[in-house]
């Protein structure tokens, strides 16, 4: 018999997804980077104490990479490696919750809008129109300007800026699913509405929603960085990646390593999340198997 088919059949859906994900080498690399980031968030202090990243040493300012300072030092002689390392935590503490909450709210509101009465859909869409009339970046700026630039407020700002788009994405995906015959079929054998939504509509939308989530995650990472870059993100001594870029801009010619290392960190993070997202989508969709 076919060798690889038998074990697949006896697997639970979760085991099967893990198995399929593990077959995808590129996504595994992405996952490795994501795990590394998580490791850094938890054990950063042991790799290089936070103290090294805030301790100023004017004599050592603007040094290039060396054995002592792997990524060099900044204008105050602070170790860039330590600052990038600890920046992971701040950037992720904003990007993770903001993305996740925006996506969950998007899925719930989108499903309701697609599934329930027209007037709810209409009201929701018009409210979102109002939010979307203002550019997301500007909206986030306004929120931070009004509330002040703490980590928590940044999450709120990102949410307000991102929710309209994620609701819209979810709604349009689910609207196309609600019209599918298998939804009618499930209803015709007696499914309840929540069952239709949670067992048929949402699982079928997950492939697309996960992709939208990874795109959002990298977009929010970049947006948080750009907020810090213009000085409205976290306050100065905090080594958030965008803030690092912002501080580095004066020395872009004389000390390019200041901008290169945080830039690489942002790029790698965004890229690895996208890779993981792609791999997850493929692993979750049985149609893409074999």
């Amino acid at each position: 018999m076919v060798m690889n088919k038998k074990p697949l059949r006896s697997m639970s859906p979760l085991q099967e997804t893990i198995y399929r994900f593990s077959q995808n080498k590129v996504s595994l690399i992405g996952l490795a980077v994501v795990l590394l980031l998580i490791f850094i968030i938890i054990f950063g202090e042991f790799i290089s104490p936070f103290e090294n990243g805030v301790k100023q040493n004017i004599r050592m300012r603007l040094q290039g990479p060396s054995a002592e300072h792997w990524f060099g030092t900044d204008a105050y002689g602070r170790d860039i490696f330590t600052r990038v390392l600890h920046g992971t935590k701040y950037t992720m503490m904003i990007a993770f919750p903001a993305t996740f909450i925006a996506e969950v709210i998007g899925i719930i509101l989108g499903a309701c809008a697609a599934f329930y009465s027209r007037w709810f859909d209409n009201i929701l869409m018009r409210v979102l129109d109002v939010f979307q009339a203002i550019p997301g970046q500007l909206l986030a700026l306004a929120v931070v300007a009004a509330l002040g630039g703490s980590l928590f407020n940044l999450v709120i700002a990102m949410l307000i800026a991102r929710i309209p788009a994620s609701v819209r994405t979810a709604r349009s995906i689910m609207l196309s699913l609600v019209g599918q015959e298998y939804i009618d079929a499930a209803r015709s054998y007696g499914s309840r509405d929540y069952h239709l939504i949670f067992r048929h509509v949402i699982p079928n939308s997950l492939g697309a929603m996960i992709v939208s989530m990874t795109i959002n995650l990298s977009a929010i990472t970049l947006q948080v960085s750009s907020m810090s870059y213009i000085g409205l993100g976290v306050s100065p001594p905090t080594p958030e990646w965008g803030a690092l870029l912002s501080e580095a801009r004066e020395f872009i010619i004389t000390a390019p390593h200041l901008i290169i290392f945080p830039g690489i960190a942002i790029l790698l993070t965004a890229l690895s999340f996208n890779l993981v997202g792609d791999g997850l989508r493929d692993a979750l969709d049985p149609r893409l198997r074999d």
Partner: protein
Amino acid sequence: MDTLNNTLLKVENLHVVYKARRETVYAVNGVSFCLKKGETLGLVGETGAGKTTTAYAIMRVLPDRTARIVNGIIEFEGYNLLDVPENLMRHGIRGEKIAIIFQDPMSALNPIMKVGDQIAEALKFHNKEDLSPERIEEQVDRTLELVGIQKERKYDFPHQLSGGMKQRVVIAIALVCEPVLIIADEPTTALDVTIQAQVLAMIDELREKLGTAMILITHDLGIVAQMCDNVAIMYAGEIIEIGSVEDIYSGKMQHPYTAGLFGSLPDLEKKTDRLHPIEGLMPDPTDLPKGCKFNPRCPRCMDICRNVQPEFTVEGTHKVACHLYGSGKGRGIDE
């Protein structure tokens, strides 16, 4: 059997409209028919005649964003289904008593659920005897074998099955709760001819074994002759002719539309160079013609047809809604 005289389903004067932003689509306009236990009714008509809408209305699964049942009675086992509260509809009727076999097996199955789980799902919703998970699995295996699929295939996803097998799964989902009425919505349209015959034979066999009544929606008159006890011909949301198979195929009266349908079929015994399709198209359902809906296409159209909606002319079990017959207004059919 004395139960044969029991009426299972009685649809009276059913009207369904679809409301779009600016226009109203009159999809079903006063459909009435009766179905006895164990009987098969063929619902025949071209695309857009309102056959599927009628079926969805019986199950009350019309899209609630647009569709409205404006008038009518759907009496099922003595209850008007249009008055039954939604949760009772879900528990007691859908899947439990009435099941639909959908037109397109490619899209009627959830692509990311194993087919066995989809069959089990229908069973779990109507789990009266609180079956244990093992018993549910057993029942799923049994139903799959009933429709001629090995039980090992229940772990497959829909895309791993062929079209004919998918249709069998769709049928298994309909049958698993042993409903008393099956609505088969063009069950073989999406299948190729060899599989069609198999699937039809299987449906018929199962129906006979379980004593289930069936509404068979189709536009294939050959299938109707083979499977049905009674036939209703629909045109533009109305039943224009209804009767037993004999009435329709060889009765004295024949609606010009029915005649047109037969004229579009090739005949094995006669040699003809070309078929005779009905000229023209179905009227726009947002703007139906006055009088008889068929009058713009009717080869035997009279003045009265353009103004007066024809009533049924009854002859035994055979009813025809055409001015050519009855009340002396029209001429008799002359060969």
